[in-house]
């Protein structure tokens, strides 16, 4: 394994300077954030660079942090370099009021459905996506269910008649 996390960090800061930051290594995986408008540029650089070669997109997902003002939604990319067997994690934060980030579909064909899933559950608007519509939920849905403002049903509620499900009926 010739490509080290330090080297990747060095190359990225050389190229993007202030636009990338927050470097850390939880459980050995290099994690960093990029400015919202730079996600595609950073991924393109990681893809094309002859030393870095992050040419496999493992996963796209999002996380909702309601308490972070103006960067409530984080889009998480996991990238993999097969030759050197290095994985990295790229985070892009976007405000929940206008969660727009650039699509990665031009770079990875697999990003298509992953971004649709992320849109479906978090409402991230991937700018430039060829077919951004819901994938797992019904098309008529009007909200984004994985956001934290939608809690699951309280398991202790007593106003529900569960008799048909063998849970004793009205308490």
């Amino acid at each position: 394994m010739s490509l080290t996390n330090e080297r990747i960090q060095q190359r990225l800061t050389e190229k993007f300077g202030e636009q990338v930051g927050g470097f850390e290594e939880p459980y050995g995986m290099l994690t960093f954030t990029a400015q919202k408008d730079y996600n595609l540029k950073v991924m393109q650089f990681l893809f094309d660079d002859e030393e870095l070669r992050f040419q496999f997109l493992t996963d796209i997902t999002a996380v909702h942090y309601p308490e972070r003002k103006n960067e409530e939604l984080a889009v998480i990319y996991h990238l993999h370099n097969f030759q050197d067997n290095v994985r990295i994690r790229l985070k892009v934060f976007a405000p929940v009021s206008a969660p727009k980030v650039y699509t990665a579909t031009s770079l990875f064909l697999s990003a298509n459905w992953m971004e649709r899933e992320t849109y479906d559950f978090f409402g991230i608007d991937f700018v430039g996506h060829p077919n951004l519509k819901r994938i797992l939920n019904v098309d008529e849905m009007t909200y984004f269910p994985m956001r934290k403002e939608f809690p699951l049903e309280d398991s202790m509620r007593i106003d529900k008649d569960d008799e048909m499900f063998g849970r004793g009926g009205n308490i």
Partner: protein
Amino acid sequence: MLDQKQHVKLPEGSLEKTTTTLNLGPTHPATHGVFQNILEIDGERIVSAESTVGYIHRAFEKIAERRPYYQITPLTDRLNYCSSPINNMGWHLTVEKLLGLEMPKRVDYMRVIIMELARIADHLICNSVMGVDTGALTGFVYLMTYRELIYEIYEEICGSRLTTNIGRVGGFERNFTPAAWAKINRFLDEYPAVLQEFEKLLTRNRIFMERTQGVGGIDAKRAMSYGFTGPNLRAAGVDFDVRVSNPYSSYQDFDFTVPVGTTGDCYDRYLVRNAEMWESISIIRQAMEKLKGLPDDVFHADVPDFYLPPKQDVYTKMEALIYHFKIVMGETDIVPGEIYNAVEGANGELGFYLISDGGRSPYRLHFRRPCFIYYQAYAELVQGAMLSDAIICMSSLNLIAGELDA
């Protein structure tokens, strides 16, 4: 002859559609699962395809945000339900990595045995169903006997067959019984001959070869771009295997090869899966050998904070009662952290992206489901193929509806 067109009254200036729209699924016996493909066909040729998923979406990621860690294991069962133990182990390994727990070697090897049995069960279904889709039912009913035996082994170990919920964070719930070992040995004794016969039935079978060669092929570069992993990527010629690249559960102690194909078509996927079954048999044999040198009463790590104490101790000992209560109520301390851990599932890289904020449930849990990611290539794979090729292509990709929808 009567001209059909004279009966159709189309508005002035409209174009006549020459292709037929065909709904393949959602509940079609040949799709082996609940997903739909809207095919546009011209005679027998597929002009375009559109895949629709989500028919059995169960919101596991949301449910997981309310559950203590040990209650998430049954959710993972229902991802790839043809090889549930791999999903279970993947989840345990993720949590153990988050908590920094070290497993004894014996637990690792027992897990390897279970995971490889699950891989065989999964590949066996996929390949024999490919036979069914080409019209060869014999191999299917023959191999099913041995999936049954694998399920009996699960049953001896954990009590259930399909959705296994096998093992715990920190090891296994109980030691393997002598009956379980006997069944594993019986499987190792009998299965190789059966697999050989199965290969004799299909591998050089003219009809099977004609039906699968050159069907649904994809080159390595496109397969990588489409996010293929597992046997489907290896069939296209990329020797990527998580067991080798990021070894977990002591896979580095085993000697096995990673079979690769060249063209990435249905036939290559079949060959790769068959070759992997042979490798899995060899890995199980090696594990059985390695286990001989280890104490045979170790089946979990010594981590009382996370591993349930024996029930008789709960009734008689104070500490055991406290630990039991804390674990069952989900009151154990989990370190905050962020982790991505992947295992080689039967279909490819099965990843768990877990964010813990120190609470009783994960703050966020995301499953990287290999099926979901590579299924989007299906439309491209079948474009220009015959309708019957679409069926065989679907079964050779080994699409599992549970894994598609999570």
